[in-house]
């Protein structure tokens, strides 16, 4: 196995391992550089499992997905493995598809609205629970329930609650004199419904991360600000919010990646319908590849790759922002 690795590839790999190891603990850039070869072999041996794991479970699937999206796969060529290379034809098919425009809009709206509400509600709750009143720990634990439930359970429950005819939400609306809303079956409401469900599911994550971020803000700052006569609102905007910025950034980035790829909730609640009104790239990719009796692997993979690229772009944006923060 060892002989198969080419010398030029050796150097970047330890770097990558270093990054993977230091990512959770950025304060440990232990500089272990070139030493005698016997030690280098030992280092390699230690690296091998992680490298193998990364290659097997990340690099190869990614490569396969890219390959799928660049070839014209029919069911026949999928089985026989002789699909012709067609360059970007699948991407062109996807871009020209009438579903592309709506799916793009829905993905952007879904992600932006979900992120905004998840973050705003999560932050509000985190600040609220930071007061440490009686039972606050219990209440905080209760807020975690949506996070603990399997997605299929929460999504099915939401789709029962939002059922047009027998759902509890419409029953409640009826009780206060508002006519029934076709939450899941009307093209103008379906996206809103899946957003509501997804916000509910995403709030606990934001709450937990932001709450722990709040713990690291020294109380002395608040005391000093209070002495200077700053009200609660000012203290929030001038102390809490700026000091929470690094935590907020990573929360939002993770939230973004999670939200971009949300699939289960939408698929269970609406199947992306009716009439594509809640189709996002994630559900569209699935439908192309698996949702039909005749799978269209190529375009499905192409849509999947667009998602990966989108997530990657935002990851890089995050990096830039963070670098700027360090510089200032």
């Amino acid at each position: 196995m060892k002989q198969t690795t080419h010398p030029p590839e050796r150097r970047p790999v330890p770097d990558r391992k270093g990054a993977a190891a230091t990512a959770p603990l950025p304060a440990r850039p232990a500089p272990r550089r070139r030493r005698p070869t016997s030690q280098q072999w030992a280092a390699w041996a230690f690296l091998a499992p992680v490298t193998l794991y990364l290659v097997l479970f990340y690099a190869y699937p990614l490569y396969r997905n890219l390959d799928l999206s660049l070839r014209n796969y029919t069911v026949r060529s999928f089985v026989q493995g002789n699909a012709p290379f067609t360059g970007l034809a699948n991407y062109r098919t996807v871009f020209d598809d009438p579903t592309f425009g709506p799916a793009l809009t829905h993905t952007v709206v879904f992600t932006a609205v979900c992120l905004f509400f998840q973050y705003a509600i999560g932050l509000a709750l985190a600040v609220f629970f930071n007061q440490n009143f009686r039972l606050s720990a219990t209440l905080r634990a209760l807020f975690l329930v949506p996070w603990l439930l399997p997605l299929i359970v929460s999504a099915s429950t939401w789709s029962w609650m939002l059922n047009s005819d027998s759902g509890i939400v419409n029953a409640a609306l009826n009780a206060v004199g508002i006519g029934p809303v076709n939450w899941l079956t009307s093209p103008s409401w379906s996206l809103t419904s899946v957003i509501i469900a997804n916000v509910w599911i995403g709030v606990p994550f934001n709450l937990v991360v932001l709450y722990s971020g709040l713990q690291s803000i020294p109380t002395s700052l608040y005391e000093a600000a209070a002495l200077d006569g700053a009200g609660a609102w000012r203290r929030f905007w001038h102390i809490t919010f700026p000091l929470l910025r690094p935590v907020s950034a990573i929360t939002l980035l993770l939230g973004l990646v999670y939200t971009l790829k949300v699939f289960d909730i939408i698929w269970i609640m609406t199947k992306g319908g009716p009439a594509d009104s809640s189709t996002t790239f994630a559900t569209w990719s699935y439908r192309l590849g698996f949702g039909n009796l005749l799978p269209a692997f190529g375009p499905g993979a192409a849509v999947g790759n667009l998602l990966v690229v989108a997530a990657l772009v935002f990851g890089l944006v995050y990096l830039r922002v963070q670098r700027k923060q360090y510089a200032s």
Partner: protein
Amino acid sequence: MNGSTGRRLTAVALTVAALATGTTACSSDGSSSAKGDDSGTYTIWDPYPQFAKNSDWAKLLDDCGSKAGVKIKRTAFDTSDLTNKALLAAQQDNAPDVLIVDNPVVSTLAEAGVLTTTDDTKLDTSKADPNLLAAGQSDGKTYGTPIGANTLALYYNKDVLKAAGVDVASIKDWPSLTTALEKVNKAGKKGITFSAIGTEEGSFQFLPWFWGSGAKLTELDSTQGVSALSLWTDWLKKGYAPNSVINNTQTTSWQEFASGDYAFAENGTWQLANAEKAGFDYGVLPIPASDGGNAAAPTGGEFVTVPVQGDTGRYTTAQKLVTCLTSTDNLYATDTTLSYVAPTTEVQDKQIASNAELKPWVEAVKAAKGRTSDDLGTQYPKISEQMWKAVQSALSGAKSPKDALTSAQSAVK
């Protein structure tokens, strides 16, 4: 700081890629070893996960195996999983020896070159009803034999109809059915429930009405096709059918009917056992065509197929296994447990003799039509997807039935 930024870049890039591929990269995990090294072991895949190891079905497989002198290794998959699993297995040259698969999938798998023809395996299909067998035929070749069939009909709740003053015998065509729904609605009960979900299930449920109007799948936007979709859309508008049908699967639609509030439900043979448990008097009515007579409903049910093997010597035993599974006695037993109608006249007669309630179902199956028949083959999935989209657009009010079907037809090309 420069070095650590580079590392962090890689770290973030990797994390993001890893998280995002979560959805896309799951496709290549289907390599559960289908074949052992032992050539005396034959693998069978079926879409009946509801049958456990000690079920009659599993025992039947073992019996057929021991008659053919081999051991059987059975794997049960969820129906919706089976197509991709079979394609992946074939790609890895790891296909099962016998594959039992939903009938509209047969043409897709045949197109992929995954299945042998019955000429290759010398399988006798002469006993199966031609209209059922047609779903597994394309270009004059047959790719398997049906193990059982089901189709759709209208279940009705006798109590609700009686309270509304509707005589079932009066329901002969679409206008009389709509009149009945109107009466039920006026009596304060709910009319009809069906499944119009945005999957193959939705197309399956819409087809009896589509075909009943005289429309053809090759021309979705014909006047007849539009009239079928308008029938459904009007029912929704007038409140004869609940708005929830747009998201109903056939199971949720059945649950609505089982609540006892609905007069009619479009559902399949497989609900018969549940109908007995529903706690009210029910009846079964073939789905009427627009001007009277019975509409052709689509055939459901599975085909027994023999996938292509590298070692063609295995076909002889595979053929023995299939013949055993589809022998008269075994068909009777299997179709009784599955609550299916048998694919051969001989067994159908036997089924009616033991249970007279199956008679309308046997008739419905005889009048039914395969979705991939008429040499549509792999054209069907494309048409079907556009059709269920059109149904969803029209029912949700996004488009008029005519516009919905026109754009569906132009998307099929």
